[in-house]
């Protein structure tokens, strides 16, 4: 397991051996997290891994059965009120009131947070404009699309800019356009100085958004670090080669492969990828590339496209858990026991 390098300054989240059980199921089974302030931290894991339960503990909605958790320096159990003043939660299922209009949802929360009636109205207007929801301000939330409701949910979470924002699977069930719109908003929130703790079961989401990632499975953190660290932990960078003629693929594969290089056929019939599986330093990738291109050129096999890069998070996940990441269904109710996971 990779540990985070020493952190300067204070931490947004620090948990030690966090445990939460539901009956016999240990939904969270000794989670250790160290999340620096100012980052976008991704918690990646399959359905039922314990992501939502962890977030609910950190947001003071659940009491842990064991271990400790400090959020922005405050203990989540003993100083829950102090934590609530600094954090904001966007739950897994949009928690806006679907009977109310978009504007009324924001007004209600702004009033609860202590804004005057006038200030609340102005703030709601600002947020609706910033999130491109002005046209829907007077629409009942029930009549808004899933993507718009999600945006409204996010807007509701930053009425007063929190120091730490929990985003529990913010894009589950959204279409690609709504997803990228939401990602833009999340990046904007981080740029404004808010620390974001995001859970996701989508590897590309963690890859695109998060500075640091913890991979969680069966209620435990099985790896944590920067994207690069995680990827390096499963092997060196690899190469992808697209051949001019798919008919040459078998020969190309035999030419490149040797006792320490593994070559795969990719789904695209003209593409092969090659990797040295053992722990290697980054420069090995260059040698691998030189070796592969040299052999192909020598044999007169044309190459149309070539990329050199780190393994994908998919491969990281596979290497860490021994199975493919699942990314289809939204996570079941947070009390779902960890063993309901399916292997796909």
């Amino acid at each position: 397991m990779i540990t985070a390098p020493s952190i300067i300054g204070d931490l947004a989240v620090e948990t030690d051996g966090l445990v939460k059980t539901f009956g016999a199921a240990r939904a969270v089974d000794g989670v250790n997290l160290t999340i620096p302030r100012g980052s976008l931290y991704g918690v990646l894991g399959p359905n039922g891994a314990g992501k939502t339960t962890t977030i609910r503990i950190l947001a003071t909605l659940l009491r842990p059965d064991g271990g400790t958790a400090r959020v922005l320096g405050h203990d989540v159990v003993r100083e829950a009120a102090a934590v609530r003043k600094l954090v904001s939660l966007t739950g897994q299922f949009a928690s806006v009131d679907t009977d109310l209009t978009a504007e009324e949802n924001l007004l209600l929360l702004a009033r609860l947070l202590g804004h005057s009636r006038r200030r609340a109205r102005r703030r709601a207007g600002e947020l609706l404009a910033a999130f491109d929801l002005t046209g829907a301000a007077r629409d009942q939330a029930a009549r808004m699309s899933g993507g718009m409701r999600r945006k409204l949910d996010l807007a509701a979470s930053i009425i007063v800019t929190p120091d730490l924002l929990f985003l529990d699977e913010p894009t589950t069930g959204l279409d690609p356009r709504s997803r990228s719109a939401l990602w833009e908003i999340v990046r904007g929130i981080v740029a404004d100085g808010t620390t974001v703790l995001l859970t996701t079961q989508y590897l590309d989401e963690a890859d695109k958004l998060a500075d640091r990632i913890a991979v969680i499975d069966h209620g435990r953190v099985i790896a944590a670090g920067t994207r690069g660290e995680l990827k390096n932990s499963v092997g060196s960078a690899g190469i992808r080669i697209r051949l001019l003629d798919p008919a040459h693929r078998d020969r190309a594969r035999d030419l490149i492969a040797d006792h320490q290089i593994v070559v795969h056929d990719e789904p695209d019939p003209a593409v092969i990828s090659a990797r040295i599986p053992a722990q290697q330093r980054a420069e090995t990738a260059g040698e691998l590339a030189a070796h592969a291109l040299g052999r192909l050129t020598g044999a007169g096999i044309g190459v149309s496209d070539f990329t050199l890069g780190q393994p994908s998070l998919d491969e990281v996940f596979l290497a860490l858990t021994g199975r493919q990441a699942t990314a289809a269904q939204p996570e079941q109710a947070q009390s779902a026991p960890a063993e309901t996971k399916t292997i796909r």
Partner: protein
Amino acid sequence: MTAISCRERPAPAGPAAASLAFAWRSLLKIKHVPEQLGDVIGIPVLFTLLFTYLFGGALAGSTHGYLQFLLPGTLALAVVFVTVYSGVTLNADLTTGAFDRFRSMPVWRPAPILGALIGDIGRYLLAGGLVVGLGLAMGYRPAGGPAGMLAAIAIVVLFASALSWAWITLGLVLRSPNAVMSIGFVILFPVTFMSNIFVNPATMPGWLRGISDVNPVSHLVTATRALMAGTATTPQVLWAVAAAAALIAVFAPLTALLYQRK
């Protein structure tokens, strides 16, 4: 994207302001989903018309005569039946995740529940007013006059607000709004019918009269009748108030305990 941050951190709303904000939420829900007043309007109208004309001839010889006896009971019955929805709406908030947000905010914890209850009191007043208004139109003439009627409505609404806590407790325990509604009605039917609402308990067999005599609903109806008739004694009113107080004493702390644990 335009500036979206708001570093200004006002002091969060106090207990009273937060509760009122949640009461405002209840009113907005009624404004946008007026269908939810269906029960508040339907039950009082149905009960007043149905029981008066159905039982009047058989039980009292005339519908007019029975109305003078029955109407205070109908008032209590209709308002008490409407209370179940306190638990239903609370449960809906829990199952949709709306409460997760409220509970992760720096807001006085009981505020969502108390605010919803304030909204519910508005519903009880509407239901009670409908019964009395309809009764007057049908020929009900209480000796206690307007003051008696207002006092009767007040004590019924007080009792109903107290009983709401029982459904709120149920709403925290059960898994779906529908479960709250069906269990609520299953409890309410025997509790309201085994009382002095429809008939004089003197006509009942001994065991049933025993139940009726200790039934808090009977105490409520006795006080309501007396207030309407202008003959209320202090003990009559005190019994009804005590029944309400007992309900709050049992279910409010139970609600608080369950809510903290959620």
